[in-house]
């Protein structure tokens, strides 16, 4: 047996080991859940879509969404315990009506994995629709307080 040969083989194996593998966060991992809103008729309780709805964070520059929907999932702010949104129906028309809505919640960070890090989950405490004497939103009812998945709606918006 040749000591030199053996020792060199072991040293060559070193090079492979000294490369540390990096984990990659796959998009199949569930990220921070959004809050799912369902728009319903305030009389019948049936699904009722909002036409030309524009959703925007109050201090955000970009719109989050513009369109006609009867349910939508919105992202909550991970850095504060309140998310402030402007919900405008009939956006950019004569019947345009803007309501300001505040979601108050507590946040819990949940560890996913080495590569994905932490995601956030929320417990909704209350929802406040600012009174402007001509609100199109009649009421906002919390159906599921804990926001930890996106399986079904968490909040019903009556209008």
């Amino acid at each position, binding site marked *: *047996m040749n*000591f*030199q040969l*053996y*020792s*060199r083989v*072991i*040293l060559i*194996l*070193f*090079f492979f*080991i*000294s*490369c*540390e*593998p990096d*984990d990659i*966060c796959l*998009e199949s*991992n569930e*990220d*921070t859940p*959004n809050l799912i809103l369902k728009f319903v008729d305030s009389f019948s309780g049936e699904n009722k879509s909002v036409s030309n709805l524009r959703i925007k*964070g109050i201090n*955000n520059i*970009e719109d*989050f969404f513009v369109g006609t929907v009867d349910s939508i999932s919105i*992202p*909550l*702010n*991970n*850095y504060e315990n309140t*998310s402030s949104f402007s919900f405008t129906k009939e956006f950019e028309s004569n019947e345009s009506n803007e309501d300001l809505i505040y979601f108050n919640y507590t946040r819990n*960070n*949940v*560890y*996913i*994995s*080495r*590569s*994905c*890090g*932490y*995601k*956030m989950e929320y417990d909704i405490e209350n929802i406040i629709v600012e009174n402007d004497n001509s609100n199109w939103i009649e009421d906002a009812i919390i159906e599921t307080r804990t926001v930890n998945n996106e399986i079904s709606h968490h909040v019903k918006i009556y209008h």
Partner: protein
Amino acid sequence: MKYHTMLRYIINLFFLLIFSIGVTQQDSLQLDTLKIKQKYGLRIGVDLSKQIRMVTEDYTGFSFYGDIRIKERLFIVAEAGNDNKKINNENINSSFSGNYIKAGFNYNFYNNPPGLENEIYFGFRFATSSFKSEVFNYLVYDLDKYWENGRIENYSEFKNLGANWIELILGFNAKVSKNIFMGTSIRLNRMISQKKPENFGNQFIPGFNVVTEDNKFGTGITYTISYRIPIIKK
């Protein structure tokens, strides 16, 4: 990162050269005595790979090594050390620190020419580690990114963590001068059990090294320099 990898390669190459020279000298050594005295004794040393890591990584640590030759080819080995590693990545800035001990044996399967005391061995260790981890800040995994993003500063500490594992080792030791040995080993670690914290993961375990996702295996390397205290001669 690239720079660090490069540096580590250069250091590895440097060691490769040192060992090559050292080994070559050993091989050219000739003894013509017929009765070869086999030295048995206690060997103590340090793992220099820790010092290299202190240069290339955000890391501090040390490791002591000790072995006793109990039979011609068999050594009983104990290792103890401390690791303190910061992991700063895109998601989480965290640190892991703690102590470990490893015990087991090395079996030298190299047939030395007369007078030489080199070893090429395989080894086995049982290892246990006790450590804590800390999270300094993190970035929330949120694909929408609608709100202003930034790292959330939220310090948390996870104490009383632990792990047990076994190591399979392949390595060599070369006698570089009287009673001084230099050696290196590569290790395959297999986790047996680990105590994970409630809301964090053991991304690094002192003694075990980096823990990759859903993987019970890890790897380690050592560069040991040791001194033999000659007690017994046979």
